[in-house]
């Protein structure tokens, strides 16, 4: 069963996100702010992470930045959810390594679609195991 971490300081939005993500069949872990998210992420490796941008302590963008520098989290898809809609903010989020930037107001259906897509892609994107054929000489010209 896939695991999703959801960080948002607004309890209603947090639960709404949890409901939507839950409908894709994933289990959710809920945290209230960026620091707690970082603390929880040191123990678990979720399949998808949803972060609010505007949170007390560490912002979602900072947490995303941190995630992309963790060996066990580097491939985990991150969705930033924000009420900030300016192109500058969106670019900053994507530059920090987020896979998606969803602006409020969002509809739960949109969240479900994005999460479902990321979970499927993740499965498909698993690296194929390297095949080694010892008898063949290595090609040098590539």
């Amino acid at each position: 069963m896939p695991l999703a971490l959801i960080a948002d300081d607004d309890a209603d939005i947090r639960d709404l996100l949890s409901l939507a993500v839950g409908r894709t069949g994933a289990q959710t872990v809920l945290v209230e702010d960026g620091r707690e998210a970082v603390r929880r992420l040191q123990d678990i490796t979720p399949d998808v992470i949803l972060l609010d941008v505007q949170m007390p302590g560490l912002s979602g963008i900072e947490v995303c930045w941190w995630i992309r520098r963790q060996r066990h989290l580097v491939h985990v898809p991150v969705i930033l959810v924000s009420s900030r809609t300016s192109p500058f903010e969106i670019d900053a989020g994507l530059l920090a390594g987020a896979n998606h930037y969803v602006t409020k107001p969002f509809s739960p259906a949109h969240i479900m679609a994005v999460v479902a897509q990321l979970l499927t892609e993740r499965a498909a994107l698993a690296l194929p195991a390297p095949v080694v054929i010892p008898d063949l000489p290595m090609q040098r010209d590539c």
Partner: protein
Amino acid sequence: MTTAGLTAYGKGLPRRPREVAVGVAVLAVVFVLMLTSVRLAPVGSTVAAWWPAAGVSAGGVLLTRGRQRVVMLAGIWLVCLSANVIGGRHVPSAAGFAFANLAECVVVALLMFGYGGQGRSLRTMQDFWRLLLAAFCGAVVAGALGGLSATAFTPAPFLPTARSVAASHLAALLVILPLFLRTGPTIHRRPWERVVQWTGVVVSTSVVFGLTQQVPVAFVAIPVLVWSALRNSLRTTSLQLLCVGVLVSVFTARGHGPFALSASGSNLPPETVASLVQAFLAVCAFTVLPLSLTVMQRRELLARVSESEEVFRHGFADAMLGMFILRCEDAYPRAIEANDVAARLLGQDRGALLSDGDWLENFLEPGRSEVRAGMLAIMAETSKGWRGEVQLAQDPSRWIELVLSTLNRDGSHYMFTAQLVDTTEQHSARQLLEAALVKEREAVVELRRLNDAKSTFVSSVSHELRTPVTSVVGYTEMLIDGVGGDVNPDQRDMLGRIRRNGQRLMVLIEDLLTASRLESGANTPVLRNHDLRDTAKGALEGVAPLLRDRRLRMNLEVGSQPTPVLADAGQLERLVMNLLSNAIKFTPDGGAVTVRVSHSDTNALLSVSDTGMGIPEDEQDQLFSRFFRSSSAQRQAIQGTGIGLSIVRGIASQHGGAVSAASVEGLGSTFTLNLPLDDPAAVDAATL
């Protein structure tokens, strides 16, 4: 014959009649003087006692230049020859004397003009020594040649003849040549002094030399001439000297006066009488000429000094600036001179300004250490001057601009000039200006702070409003989708109303935020090349939910060619959606809404027309103001905030375009967006 040939032919001849006249006059005078002198030769002598013709002829030569001089010399020889012949001399002897005269003129001219001489100038003692040398050499040459010709053609002995000729010529040259030279400026004395002076010269000389008894009072002429030298110009003095010479010669030749009488009394030869006359004249010239020269020079020098003194006085005393002359020793300056403006500036009389004590301490209060440092720098020769603003000791509200510059250095004393200008007004004006600038800067900072506060407000409001609306609409959708369990049709209808109104709230919030961002300029569009037809299609799709439960005909009329514009796709679509939602809102069921996209050579046009209620004509000019709602909309209680069209206009102008409206009340409205085409050439190419 050409003009050039004529010119060449005439070259060397006197060019101006005046010059010819002068030359002829000189020769005529020489002729007359020679005749007279030969006639006036003392009885028993072969030579004349005085030979003024020598002076005049030498002077005449000095007056000429170049070839004129050669002509003049030839004339002199001829005149001399003829005068001597007429005077009773044999032709060979006359020719010899004429030659002697010629040689004398040549020598005098050579010496006067040669060796850097100014020629015709008698202004300095140097000129006088030159004149003396020329006269002496000329006389010696004339004497030697005259003596030779006398020895050769007459029974007269060489030496006495040579001696007396030389002496007579020297006297004549010394007395007459100065009249041909340029001297200092003429001096105008009062008429009575001139009359008395001239009378003195004539009378005293006539009386002394007209005496028929032997009284040796020849010296009486000298004080009168000295008087002239002290008071008159060199030219006047020379004239009087000449006058004395003529009178002395005439009287002596007639046997009057101390020289002739003493000679006759002691049976001296006539040559001795001549020599005495010549010596007397030479002494007179030698006494009077240098004296006159020196007096003249002194006079000129005084005039120059007093002129420069006057200039300085004027510059200093009547200057528009306050001026001081400071004398500075060990960095303690004392004022030794001050002008009236300085006194006025410092509010004290000049006597007080020149009092003892440190000038800086006395008059300039703050900043004087700076001035002193500047002064020390000048004295150490590390700077040329000092300039700065200082306050007055007596009245610190007054500001003075002070400029110090060195005047000269005298041992350990330095002299400075200090120039003072009252800059109180400029100073206060500058202070006012500075205060105004500070105030303006503060205002700008305050404005910036307000603007920042507004931006912060917009972003925090956007967060605070969007988040709860998200919850409202999100949970409603979940309920409708049955996440919270089954809902019956009544409940579903109610939930639908909640969702619809939530969405309206969302739109309103977005509109408000957009309007606010447009107004503060924080809304920066990301411009990309975009086909306006796609925008129209997208916007039509976007308003599809509004058409549910409505009976409206939606038409889209686009051309087959792309209509490229440089635009932010999202914002442009929002603009068109605003226009469309208005059209839908204000058009009753059964009507039609038409979207047209077209373009001219330079502009892309998108119009939205409806068959709705229209806008009263007198309200059309307020259409695009924020929160404006037409009276017809209010009458029919159609929902709206009046913000949509102001956003439309804001976005259009951000894209360099414009929106216009045309409407007839009751028939419908047409809103037209006009944007510059991105690349008209590309469109033309596609059209062809």
